[in-house]
Every structure is written in structure tokens, then in C-alpha cells.
């Protein structure tokens, strides 16, 4: 029996039962812009970068189950334009000064900006006041760059079983907090080896004592644009999920 398929920008995409539109696309080698998706975690659906037009309606491809016969559009000027706007929203929401960011060249937000040709934040910058937390011996938290994707929250709760991170506040005041009455990472049981220390798509959770270990220009997305890294984003079994 042949695998069921749907069409994505005119191309037939096969999928396995339980896969999302996005997982199927990635498995077929089609890059899908994303920030809150991570192959080892359940979809979150918050960044909205993966939005596509599915059977004529906009929807996040990371949360939409693949189904036979779906007509999906992704790489259209209209959708790419909306994705650019979303990136610009994230760029003005935080304080992104890439020249001094250790994550530059490895950062998905930045890489997607390059990929989609975002040349300006466009909107008026909000310049929020977000202090840095340097209380932990091995890890620095620079909240200025947090895009609130909750990957660290999920990794710490689901993999590390520590729940070091959570979100507080609402709306534009929403922000990341750590699990301590003092509010300081140094007062938690967080460790550099935690899964939560590995998943941040941007430059918030950074190992200390490593300033520019990999020189700028030789970093992950310097060599090849993020769209050529599609193999790294292909679906894998999610720990704790039934197959």
C-alpha cells in the first residue's frame, strides 16, 4: 500500500501516522521556518513562524496533524511576508544586539532573519528593561534576548525533571522566571549539563567562561543558511511519547 500524501506548494509529501504537517515536510527535506519547535519535544504552537495556509486557512503546521489530500501552501510571498513581520515583532520585543551576543551565528532567530531577508526591525523598538542573571557559577541568563518559546521550560520539566524555568506575567509583560524565591538561577539546582541548557534557540542561556570559543564567521549558520540544515530538524521519537 502506498503511503498517504498531501501537497505542499505543489509537491507530494508522504507522511506517517501521527506526524504533523511540519514534521512530514521536514522529513521530506522541505525546510519550514520555526522557533518554538524542537524535534525532541511536543509541538508548542506559540511562535507562529511555521504558519501555513492549509486547505485555504492559516494554521500552524507544527500543530496540524498531516492528513491525506491536504492542500498546503508555505513558500508564497504572502506567507513569507507574514513570517518576516513575526520576526520583526520578536526583534523589537527584546533587545537584540547581535554584535555582542555569544549566540550570533548559531541563533535561529537571526538565521531566519537572514533566510527571509529581514533587513530592519521595521517597527519601533520597545527596548524593554530586562536585567541579566549572572548568579549561577556556570551559566549566564540574558533575558534581553528571550523570545518566550518555552523550550527551556519544557526541557527542564519533561527531561531534567527539575522545572527550573517557568513563565510569569501576561501579554507583553510576560517573562521567564526561575524556580527560586530569590528569583536567581544560582539558587536553583540548574546544571550546565541539563537538557534545558542546550535547547535555547537564541542567546539567553549561555555557558560562562566561553567568550567567542568558536570565532564569528565559522559558526553553524555562517557556513550554510538555516534552510540547508533541514536534516537537523527532522522528527525523532519524543521521549515519553507513545509511537
Amino acid at each position, binding site marked *: 500500500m502506498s503511503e498517504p500524501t498531501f501537497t505542499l506548494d505543489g509537491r507530494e509529501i508522504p507522511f506517517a501516522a501521527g506526524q504533523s504537517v511540519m514534521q512530514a515536510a521536514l522529513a521530506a527535506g522541505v525546510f519550514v521556518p520555526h522557533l518554538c519547535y524542537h524535534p525532541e519535544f511536543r*509541538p*508548542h*504552537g*506559540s*511562535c*507562529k*513562524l511555521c*504558519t501555513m495556509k492549509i486547505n485555504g486557512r*492559516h494554521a*500552524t503546521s507544527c*500543530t496540524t*496533524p498531516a492528513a491525506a489530500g491536504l492542500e498546503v501552501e508555505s513558500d508564497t510571498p504572502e506567507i513569507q511576508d*507574514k513570517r518576516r*513581520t*513575526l520576526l520583526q*515583532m*520578536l526583534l*523589537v*520585543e527584546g533587545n537584540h544586539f547581535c554584535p555582542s551576543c555569544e549566540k550570533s551565528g548559531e541563533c535561529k532567530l537571526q538565521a531566519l532573519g537572514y533566510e527571509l531577508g529581514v533587513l530592519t526591525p521595521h*517597527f*519601533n523598538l*520597545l527596548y524593554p528593561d530586562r536585567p541579566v542573571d549572572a548568579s549561577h557559577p556556570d551559566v549566564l541568563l540574558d533575558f534581553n534576548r528571550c*523570545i*518566550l518559546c518555552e523550550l527551556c521550560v519544557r526541557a527542564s*520539566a519533561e527531561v531534567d525533571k527539575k*522545572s*527550573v*524555568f*517557568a*513563565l*510569569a*506575567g*501576561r*501579554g*507583553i*509583560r*510576560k517573562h521567564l*522566571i*526561575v*524556580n*527560586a*524565591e530569590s528569583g536567581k538561577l544560582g539558587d536553583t539546582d540548574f546544571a550546565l549539563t541539563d537538557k534545558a541548557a542546550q535547547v535555547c534557540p537564541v542567546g539567553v542561556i549561555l555557558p560562562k567562561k566561553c567568550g567567542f570559543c568558536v570565532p564569528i564567521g565559522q559558526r553553524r549558520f555562517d557556513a550554510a543558511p538555516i534552510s540547508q540544515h533541514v536534516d537537523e530538524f527532522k522528527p525523532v521519537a519524543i521521549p515519553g511519547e507513545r509511537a
Partner: protein
Amino acid sequence: MNQHDAIQAVLARHGNDGTRLMQILRETQEALGWLAPETLTAIARGVNWPRAKVEGTASFYSFFHTRPLGLYRVLWSDNITDRMLGSVELMQAMCQKLWLEPGRVSEDGLVSVDATSCTGMCDQGPAVLVNYRAVTRMTPERVDRMVELIRSRTPLADWPQDWFRVEDNVRRSDILLGNDMVPGDALRACLARGTESTLNEVKAAQLRGRGGAGFTTGLKWEACRNAPGKTRYVVCNADEGEPGTFKDRVLLTRQPDLVFEGMTVAAYAIGASKGYVYLRGEYRYLLESLNSALARRREAGLLGKNILGRSGANGGFDFDIEVHLGAGAYVCGEESALIESLEGKRGVPRNRPPYPVTHGFLDQPTVVNNVETFAAAALIALRGGDWYKSFGTPRSAGTKLLSVSGDCERPGIYEYPFGVTVQQVLEECGAGVGTGDTQAVQISGPSGITLGPDEFGRRIAFEDIPTAGAFMIFDLRRDIFDVVRNFIHFFAHESCGFCTPCRVGTTLLKNLVDKIAGGHGTRSDLNEIHNINRVLQAAAHCGLGHTAGNPLAHTLEKFRPAYERRLKSLEFEPAFDLDAALSQARQMTGRDDAGAHLANELETPR
């Protein structure tokens, strides 16, 4: 009782159950005044949740405070209808008399004054909440008196009781508000009929949800009944957060039995044994009366074990209802966010599918319906689907409660069969009488639709203008731009912050509208508004974000001059006030020469 004992008592009352965190936090705050860092730590330990998760919930809701906000906390309802009745000036006067800035606590820790989203008293504003108790019909005299009572630290119990009176203002009744059902009669009819045919009557009635989305109730109940699960839940959505809506408040005041009976009917039809009423925090004052109504029903055998004497292996029917209070978050009216909140979490809408009918409260099949939907369901259970369907229009069965407010002589609740024209409502509530013609009506709240006079012939019905019930009237004295600005501020304040487009986009919209209000808007700002709105509509996660730009879109189409007369003719204006941006440097250097100022417009070319 000391702090520790107070917290432990609350925890014990709720069985140290984290899913009851909302109630735990509220009761602790009622006992201790605020939620201090060590209080949150103690609660987290008590419910055995990570502390950060407890703080995450506490910081999400407007009515929980993690810093002290005074012995007296006064919150002015900030709906446009309150503003039209003078709330802004009254709040200013109150702040001046108390030597306060809005949002700040007085130095002696006595009092804070701030604004809050619509409190659902639009027909008797301007309204405030004092320590989360509703006070209606504020006047300059009441402000003076209230300031005195606060200064003299008079307990709320000794304040004039008349202030706390909330009127029902029922102006027109029909089958729902005019019913004289004896509590239990609808249930008796159901039990005689059986579950299957009870469901069939609701389906035959073609009842559609009254909370806004208009989903067919019978189908929802059926899907829930058929979904596999350990148990099932019935949830009544009494969050009523849409500005301009207050009909659920009146139903819960006048007809609590009808609502509870409708919930019990639903429980019977789907096989649920537990129900919750999610009551918005603004209606805290209703809690005691609702609880006594529930107690009465238990005594009468209409709730609890073996309802109406039904016991035994196949006939037994057990069901009980509990009232849960929200804490100031409009988004919790969205059904999946409501369920998250019921579970003690941040009120963030879930990813769907799965839907609540299969995976709802505690992951079990759950029916969520609006207060009015349950009330109508009780009537249907009593008198049958065909009877109900004979009211309204062929595609919109039954009646609808409208919450009428704004520029009219008789604001209040109007029950009409579906199909009534906007014009008829305007005439019957005395709109425009003596104040000039009606220029616009906002139907179903900020997320609804703005109608101009040439559309007043349209009908309230699912097939024409669907509505959750708000009906706000603006006559020619009003500036439509002020209305829109108020609505956009509301959405920015109430965005839950989960998804990028709404979290950031609503704030960007707010900044643009404020820029236009400040006289610095240009045509390019209007284009920007359209742009952001398109992204909200396409990419937002829930209805709040999808509709947040509606007031702008509708009024830019229908009331464009309201914007244009504020625009600069220039194609571009700075995002901020250039001259004001030098204010701090002027202050520090003491300079005031010509070079210490900037013209806000491009200098004319030489």
C-alpha cells in the same frame, strides 16, 4: 491567626490540591492582603508544585498581586461606557484627593487606585471594585465620601450598603427571563424522558451557543457523551469578560436555579457527575448567593447523590456543582484557557485539536457552555425542542439576551426573539432621545462589529449579526476614535502573551493608536495598522488575537474621518515626540535655549 496558619488553613480546605490553585491563591490573598514571595513558596510546598509554576499562575491574573497594593484597593472599570459616564475624571479626582498616582500605593500603604478592564456594570456605571467588591453609580459625592472612609480606615462592612447594590435593570423579558419554572421540573421531565431523548430535544431545538461562537449545543453534548473517558465534566462559562456584556450577571442573580438546572440537564445527557461554574472575579459578590442556591438545591434533592431519588445500578444520577472564581483575565473566557485556569494554571488557550469535548478538564471529556446556553437548555428540557424552535428565526432558534449600554435612556437587559432589528432595540431603549442621533452601535463587544446608521436595519441572528450580547450605543457627541482606542488598550492589556502576533502585535497597535491620538499619526500609520491586523488574523492562536484588530478594521472602513482629522498631512512623522525626548537633558542641564528644543515637524526646506 498568623500567616503560616492562615495559609495552612486554606491549603487544608482545598486538600492541598494544586488544580485548585486559583481558589487557594484568592482565599490566601483575602486573608493576608497580598501574595508575598514567602507565601508563594509556602503554597508551592503545600500543593507540591514547583514554586515557579505557582508564581507563573499568580502573576498571570490581574486580581492576584505579588506586591502589596494597600489595605484598600480601588479599581475603576475602564470600559468606554464608564468613560462616557465620567470615570476618567472621577478617578483623577480620587487620586488627587488621596495624593496618589494611578497604580501606586500610598506611602503609608493604605490605598492604591488603578483602572481595570470592564467590570460588567455598564448599565450602572461608572463602576469601581473596592477590594474586589463591586460599587456602582459613582458620583463626585461618592468619591469624596469614599476617600473619607478610606482615610478613616472604615471597614467595608460599615460602608453605605446602598453603594454595593447592583441593579438587574431587566427592561424586556421573554421566554427566558419571564419563565416561572419550579426548580426541578425540567429535571423531572428529563428523567422521565431518558438521556437519549433529552439529547434529542436539545438537538431538535437547534440551540446554538450563546457565548459567541454559536456552536450547536446538541452536537457538542453528543460528542462529549461519545468521547471515551474515565469521567465527564460540565463547565458553565460565567467569565463574561467581553466589555459591554452583563447579561450572565443578571441571569445568575435572578435565575440561578435555571442555570444550575441546565447544567444538571447537561450532566444527565452526557453522563457527568461534576460541574463547575467559572465565575469571573469581578462577580465575587455573587459567590455567597450562588453557594446558597446550590445548598438549597442539594437539600431539595436536585443536586448531590441520587438526584430526585434516582438510585440503583442503572438509574442512579449523581451530580454536584461548584463555583470557581477567576481573577481578572478576559482570555479565560476562551474555553480551553478557562479549563487551564480551572486546573490552577495560567489561562493560556490550548492547542486544538484535541477539543475540550474529548480532552477537557483534567484531560477528560468536558462540555463548556455559556450561562445563557444552560438556561435555555433547561427551558428546552422542560418544554421540548419544538416549542423552543418556534421562537426566533428559522436559522436562529429562541431568544437572546442583550446587554444594552451607552447613550440611551434605559440601559439594561433586553430579551428578544432572534431576528430583532438593531433599529427596534435602539427605539425601545430610548437611544438618541434628547442627546442627538445614534452614530454607531458596537455589537458583541470590542471583538464584535461596529455598525453605522445605514446598517441599523440589520438583524440580531446567527445568519446576520451574531452576538454574545453586548450592545453599546454611541451618539453623535462621541468620538469614535476614542471608542476604538479604548478597545485596543483593552486587547493589549488582556493578551495572554502566548503567541508572537498577539503578544507583540496588540502592543504595536496600541502604540500606533496612541501616536494618532497624540496628533502625530500619518497615512503610513494607517497602513501599518492594516498590516499588523492581517498578521493577527492569519497567525494568532485564539479568538482574542484574531479579533483584536476588528475595531480598527471596522471603523477605518466606516468612520475613516474619525482618523483622518487627527492625521498630520505629512507622509511620515517620528515615532516619538522629538522635543519631549530632550526633557531629561534639559532638566539636568538647566538649559532652555533654542538649541535645547526640537521642532516636531520637518523644517521647511531652505
